[in-house]
């Protein structure tokens, strides 16, 4: 008997093999949902952090704008007095 004939006979027999059942539907859905979430979650965290940073910057800017002064004002203040 040739090895290829033996392989053919083994394969014919193996095709009748009973394969134990699996139940993967729940696990598949869980994996799909988990793989979907990581894309959304970091994006949400990033958006929240950006909004918080923007709010802080806005507060600092508003405060600075209110207290804004010409840095050269003190230098030229005396000259102005002389000119007057």
């Amino acid at each position, binding site marked *: *008997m040739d*090895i*290829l*004939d*033996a*392989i*053919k*006979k*083994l*394969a014919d*027999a*193996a*095709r*009748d*093999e*009973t*394969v*134990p*059942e*699996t*139940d*993967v*539907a*729940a*696990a*598949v*859905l869980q*994996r*799909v*949902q988990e*793989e979907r979430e990581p894309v959304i979650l970091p994006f949400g965290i990033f958006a929240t952090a950006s909004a918080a940073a923007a709010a802080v910057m806005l507060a600092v800017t508003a405060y600075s704008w209110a207290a804004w002064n010409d840095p050269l004002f003190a230098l030229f203040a005396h000259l102005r007095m002389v000119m007057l």
Partner: protein
Amino acid sequence: MSDTDRRDIQACLDGDDEAYARLVRRYEPQVARQMHRFDRDPAVREELVQDVFVEVYYSLEGFRGDAPFLHWMRRIATRVGYRHWKRQSRRTRQVPLEEWDGVAETDESVDPAKAGAMLHALFARLPPKERLVMTLLYFEECSTAEIAERMGWTRPMVKMRAYRARNKLKEVAEREHLLEKLGWIS
């Protein structure tokens, strides 16, 4: 493609996860059977079946519906299994053929489970590409054209791999006196 499949695929694309669960349950036995050819360890097989359905889920938009859904899924399953073998071959895991001596007790008929295990062990001696060709040819009775279509290879390439695989198996058989161990089959 059946109307049920078409409806469930469309519902799934519209975001209905339960529709996908129905598709999984419908085709799980066929996919599990196919993945059994790639790994006989029940835990690994279950993992592979999951991998197939996760990959099918993400590829669903590309399914045109001009072939049966199962046919399309089998292509993905074949690639998932082939990737598994490629990863495995780096670890060079092999089932020792000496274990075959124990199967000679069945003289009249060949036990399907043992026959499957023996072929699995024998084909595991081949590099992944040749192993895949032999598995599809013998276990799934695919034609060379079908194998070429599933894997995106040319038909002459498949024939060449089958030729090389058969020669290597003949060498293994001679070296390890497999025909003596398999004599009871004839």
